[in-house]
């Protein structure tokens, strides 16, 4: 029976990034994926003829350029196209746009407030400063503060130096950033509700918190620290849909000799004498490997794939307590023509960006109140994009794919399981909101894919449908992600690693967890990490 050097559970983008690095370092790697498609939450499927969806994730910024380069992803078809900005439609028939050009952006805000127009610069400076602080941490294994190993010590010193290099003001701002609510944070800069509502979206996306909950300011940072070709904070569309990222990764993996098996659901990890020796598939097939790396979230990995008795009790407890609440839903729509938004001028660049309908923080917070009560938001916060305005490959000319991410959507409905009727009622809140601003919208719909946390969990395996494989709150970040003591991609079981978004630096299509995990695994295997380039300098 073949014994692989490594078996990776899950062909999500992090599992694939991890596998690529291991294969390139000379290990013989097998990826097993339960679905008959790959990609996890970075996936593009054609569910109706002629339309490619970005079924889960829909915009790209966080994916690290170092990884794209190391794994030669452009050669395998990856291209990210930046987009303009976006708009919030206001209830009085106007809108607030976000424009790429700083002066146009200032003039746009000045339509609402002369003061806020000139406040944006300082806000952007402060956010950028914080991103510059965090960015270098993404591509490093978080230090274990309880360890005295030289590498941990030197990483702690690195962290310490970064803090020491900060001015008192910056340090104050950093701590505030990590603890404040996005609403309070924005109040320090701006007075215009619609502007705050537009900016606050990044603080709540995928998060089971409202804009007034402490901790959401950090979530905003998490969404800002990405880049498109060096433009920090910019977002773009992956040409061909988000699945083109995982397709490129899979091609890169195969080209270097790696193997992917789909429709191969892991039932559990094979553990002997406290050491992982492979996996057992749902049908009972055993696959042997020198090490096992799980791309699934931390709960699935340790509460489903591993027998509890193999794990120390405090660890199991921490994993159980890991916050991974589902809070988002998504409606993917195929349109037979471009929807009209009479509020926007014809050819407005906003149509190529992210569009929202929630024009106040208060509406956003009320949308969250529904979630707390176990219901989907009656007036949901929708992040809507139409990638086909910039990407001609996802639908035929004149046809469009629209992605509507909706916050908030609970993992269970008032304590019971989702039904199909619930799902359709959830979709209706999204459709009717769009239709309010876009006459004739319903008539353009050709096909629709509705995803509540139920579908997201069932298809992607994200526990509770949490899009980040665990909340991005500060108690679950850095050396506390996923749980204290196990932030370095290792686990209590020898030879069992985790590499998904549950680990540092967290969720989003970023690739950093998969890459960092690969570096640790290679170190344990005494293999060279020369294929893993260091993070680009932040200068």
């Amino acid at each position, binding site marked *: 029976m073949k014994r692989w050097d490594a078996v990776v559970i899950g062909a999500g983008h992090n599992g694939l990034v991890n596998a690529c690095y291991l294969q390139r370092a000379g290990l013989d790697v097998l990826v097993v994926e339960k679905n008959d498609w790959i990609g996890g939450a970075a996936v593009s499927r054609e569910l109706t003829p002629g339309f490619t969806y970005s079924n889960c994730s829909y915009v790209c910024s966080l994916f690290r350029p170092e990884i794209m380069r190391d794994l030669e992803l452009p050669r395998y078809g990856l291209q990210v196209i930046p987009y303009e900005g976006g708009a919030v439609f206001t209830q009085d028939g106007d809108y607030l746009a976000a424009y790429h050009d700083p002066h146009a952006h200032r003039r746009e805000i000045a339509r609402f407030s002369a003061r806020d127009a000139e406040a944006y610069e300082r806000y952007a*400076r402060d956010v950028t400063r914080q991103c510059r602080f965090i960015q270098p941490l993404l591509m490093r294994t978080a230090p274990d503060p309880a360890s005295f190993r030289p590498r941990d010590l030197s990483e702690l010193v690195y962290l310490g130096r970064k803090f020491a290099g900060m001015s008192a003001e910056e340090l104050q701002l950093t701590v505030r950033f990590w603890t404040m609510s996005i609403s309070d944070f924005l109040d320090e800069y701006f007075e215009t509700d619609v502007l705050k509502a537009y900016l606050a979206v990044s603080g709540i996306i995928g998060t089971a918190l409202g804009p007034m909950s402490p901790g959401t300011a950090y979530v905003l940072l998490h969404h800002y620290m990405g880049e498109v070709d060096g433009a920090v904070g910019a977002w773009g569309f992956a040409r061909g849909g988000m699945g083109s990222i995982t397709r490129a990764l899979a091609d890169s993996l195969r080209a270097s000799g790696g193997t992917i098996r789909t429709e191969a659901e892991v039932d559990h990890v094979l553990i002997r004498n406290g050491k992982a020796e492979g996996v057992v598939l749902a049908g009972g097939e055993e696959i042997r490997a020198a090490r096992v790396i799980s791309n699934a979230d931390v709960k699935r990995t340790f509460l489903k794939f591993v027998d509890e008795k193999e794990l120390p009790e405090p660890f199991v407890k921490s994993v159980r307590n890991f916050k991974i609440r589902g809070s988002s839903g998504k409606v993917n729509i195929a349109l037979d023509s471009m929807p009209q938004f009479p509020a926007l001028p014809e050819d407005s660049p906003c149509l190529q960006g992210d569009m929202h309908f929630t024009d106040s923080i208060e509406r956003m917070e009320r949308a969250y109140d529904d979630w707390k009560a176990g219901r989907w938001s009656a007036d949901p916060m929708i992040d809507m994009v139409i990638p086909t305005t910039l990407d001609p490959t996802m639908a035929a000319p004149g046809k469009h794919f629209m992605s509507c991410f909706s916050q908030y959507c609970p993992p269970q409905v008032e304590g019971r399981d989702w039904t199909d009727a619930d799902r359709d009622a959830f979709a209706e809140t999204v459709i009717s909101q769009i239709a309010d601003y876009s006459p004739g919208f319903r008539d353009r719909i050709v096909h629709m894919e509705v995803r509540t946390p139920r579908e997201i969990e069932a298809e992607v395996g994200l526990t509770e449908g949490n899009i980040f494989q665990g909340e991005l709150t500060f108690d679950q970040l850095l050396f506390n992600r996923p749980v204290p003591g196990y932030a370095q991609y290792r686990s209590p079981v020898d030879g069992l690693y985790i590499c998904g978004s549950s680990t540092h630096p967290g969720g989003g299509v970023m690739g950093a967890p998969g890459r960092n995990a690969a570096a640790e695994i290679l170190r344990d295997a005494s293999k060279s990490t020369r294929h893993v380039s260091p993070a680009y300098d932040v200068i």
Partner: protein
Amino acid sequence: MTVVPPLTDEKRRAAQKHIETIRFETPFHPRIAALMQTNDWYDWAGYKSANTLWAEELEYFAIRAQSALFDISPMVKYRIEGPDAEAFCNRLTLRDVSKLRPGRVHYTAWCDDSGHVLDDGTLFRLADTRFRLCCQERHLPWLLDGALGFDVAVTEETEEIAGLALQGPTSCALLKAAGFDGIETMKPFDIRDFGHESGSVTVSRTGFTGDLGYELFIDTPLALSLWDRLWTAGELYGIRAIGNAALNQARIEAGLIVANIDFITTDHALRADRVRMPDETGLGWMVDLKKGHFNGRRAIEDARRNNSIRHVLVGLEIEGNVPADHAIVYHRKKREAGVITSAAWSPTAKRNLAIASLERPYGDTITEDLWVEIYALHELRYTKLMKRATIVPRPFVKLPRRTATPPADC
């Protein structure tokens, strides 16, 4: 303090169209576009502005030999008005505003509470309780927040007020010929209102060239007729429209600094160590400790007391004739001492000039044996030059006509 009123719904909607022209045109655009030969535009704070109109070198000599007309409308302007206007400006800026009489303008700067420079600019005292602040960057939230507790209204008026700089040895005579009676009696930094059509034009004897010159401010609707008035009268005085490139040469000769070119303003500094105190940007002379409290005072005093001021801005004269833009400054050709922020060959002084930011003790206690490393790219080959640099006082070029009152031929 009064709150800035929001636009009416109707106005707010009409303003949507701004996105159709990302680079706004200034009120003088029709005239400048008609004279534009090089099609060499650049973006000045969101406005389409001329970098050159026909030839940089020749435009420069319009400043030094005739009269040069330059559009300064993109300068950011704030109106500060109310019983507490003087007290507010005194709290905001470094110099003593109580010494600034109505009808006078002074060059000043303002800092945040940590004593780092937010911007420099000119403060016009148009009347006892009315000021205009002109600058490069935007500060409305800072001004409004600072106005809390003061009986003063702060309004941004960049678009309402158009501005022209008329600079050069014939500028006084030109204005006189254009009907600006008594212009010759204006001293440097004087302000005076003159009639123009239905309204008036505010003229100050100021400029950014170190030459004889004036700046004219007018309500936007009257802008073009003011231009025409100057242009018609100017025919006999060699009036020429000029762009930024020529102006920049003249301002370096005058030793004047530009925010976000010669230093980074606090609101722009993404890297926390790039911010600068007045003492680090050559603006220390503005700090008036005899007046009451002002923003940044405590931090500036502390830094002076603790001797923790880390940089110094100096004027340099460099051997040879190759401009040393952004070159590294060395001590003994070895140790990095700083960086050149602006550089130009001076046609008037026939010297190679530069403004540099040095890290102390260089420029402070160590002022000798400084060198700059210039990489001159010619026909795809770099010539690497190590040239001696000498610290010299600014302005590099001092023209008696800048300050003579009345000006010579007026």
